């Protein structure tokens, strides 16, 4: 088996791997309405809309520390 053949198998395996990652990511995004912080992905848009320094963060980093 020469290097080109090895590369070919490598590419094939990698392509399959990438496809699996892609679809599991899509599944991850759309299956969970709520994530670990209890907020929907779509809520993250509010990071731009409510971005004054006095606004409450969508998922504050200090929440972690309090726990």
């Amino acid at each position: 088996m020469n290097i080109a053949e090895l590369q070919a198998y490598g590419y094939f395996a990698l392509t399959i791997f990438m496809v699996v990652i892609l679809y599991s990511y899509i599944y991850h995004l759309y299956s969970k309405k709520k994530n670990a912080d209890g907020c929907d992905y779509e809520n993250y848009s509010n990071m731009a809309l409510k971005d004054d320094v006095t606004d409450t963060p969508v998922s504050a980093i200090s929440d972690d520390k309090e726990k």
Partner: protein
Amino acid sequence: MENRPLEYDYTVAKMFMLTTILTGIVGMLIGVILAFELAFPGINTILGDGLAEYTNFSRLRPLHTDAVIFGFTLSGVFATWYYVGQRVLKVSMAESGFLMFIGKLHFTLYVVGVIAVIVSLLAGVTTSKEYAEFEWPIDIAIVVVWVLWGMSIFGLIGIRREKSLYISVWYYIATFLGIAMLYLFNNMEIPTMLAASPAGETGFGAWYHSVSMYSGTNDALVQWWYGHNAVAFGFTVPIVAMIYYFLPKESGQAIYSYKLSLLSFWGLMFVYLWAGGHHLLFSTVPDWVQTMGSIFSVVLILPSWGSAINMLLTMKGEWQQVAASPLIKFMVLASTFYMFSTLEGPIQAIKSVNAIAHFTDWIVGHVHDGVLGWVGFMIMAALFHMAPRVFKRELYSKSLMATQFWIQTLGVVLYFTSMWIAGITQGMMWRAHDEFGNLAYSFIDTVTVLHPYYTIRGVGGLLYLVGFLMFAYNIYKTMTSGRRVEENELQSASPMGA
């Protein structure tokens, strides 16, 4: 300090806004001069024969591309980062003396670098590699500037209050990493000052000169892997970062689908880098690399349109805002031009189309509908949105903005239509054979035929420059004499004077 409410600190953002406008004027002015030099070659010696060396097309051409890429666009990227970064991470630069210092140092060294680039390119000190023309001393300076920006990005992220990173921050991080990788590998070079002759002499020849680590075909492969993706990570990724923040904010609409924005991000990251081979179709690089370049260029339509459509759908049900606000007009047209040029690019990357298009003005037209229509419009829109907030003043004139919008749109349309015709005309003439199988046209026939299109292109470019000067004036007047506004007027739509 404790008694004063915390505020975002836009000092560094303001500095980069200034260089965005200045280098924008310089880069676009040189572009207009170059355009007219092609239409009317007499302009090459416009300052007399003595200075012809410095007003000549070939000397100015790298200065135009670099002023627009590394001056205008990069300044715009930095300016918006120092604005958007603080806001979506909900942390002020004023909270960290260290980050403030880094930011100011970043700006200072950046200006030094810009001046060094202008001087050296005018003097003809260049490595000839497109958008990587700088010799090694400037390369090192650029790396330092880049590292400082990285420290600023990750420093600000390190002290953030918002746990998750907003999609724009993703794109800024990708810009930082992408350019860092590409720039380092493409500029691998050995200074010739290290040479020692067999007789033992050292230190002769120009100290700044260097020789590329790669030769011939390899050099071309690395260069266009860089060249194509410098466009990706300079002209696409950070501009997408801007539109994902500024369009929702200005219109008050949440992104149509935040999930789609994440998917498009990973799609763009993975696919973009493969497409560089389309610059080298029918060259001496391996055939499979060329084919990969072609295929991935077409695949690239998906993530690009994912972002662009997401932005247009964000305006769903709110299209009256497009009619009402020139600022929204700029962003919606930018997004439209993004869709347009990310469709045009893949078409040009198809081998049989590329056989005609490569080496012609169609490619120049493609670059410019992307840069003038998408990058330029988006950066100007971002600065328009930022101005009232960083200066706490109303935008000076809404009608001036609207006029500027239409003048520049007309300019872009004239530019790319004339370049389409010029490119396809020339491409077809080059390959035309007569009935006996001889070439139908000598090369000069294919040049003189372009004169009218070069003239139209020059006029298009000039209109865009005029619009940009109106933009600069509008921002200046906003800064100096706009009506002062209160914080509560700045929630979404920017306040504009008549």
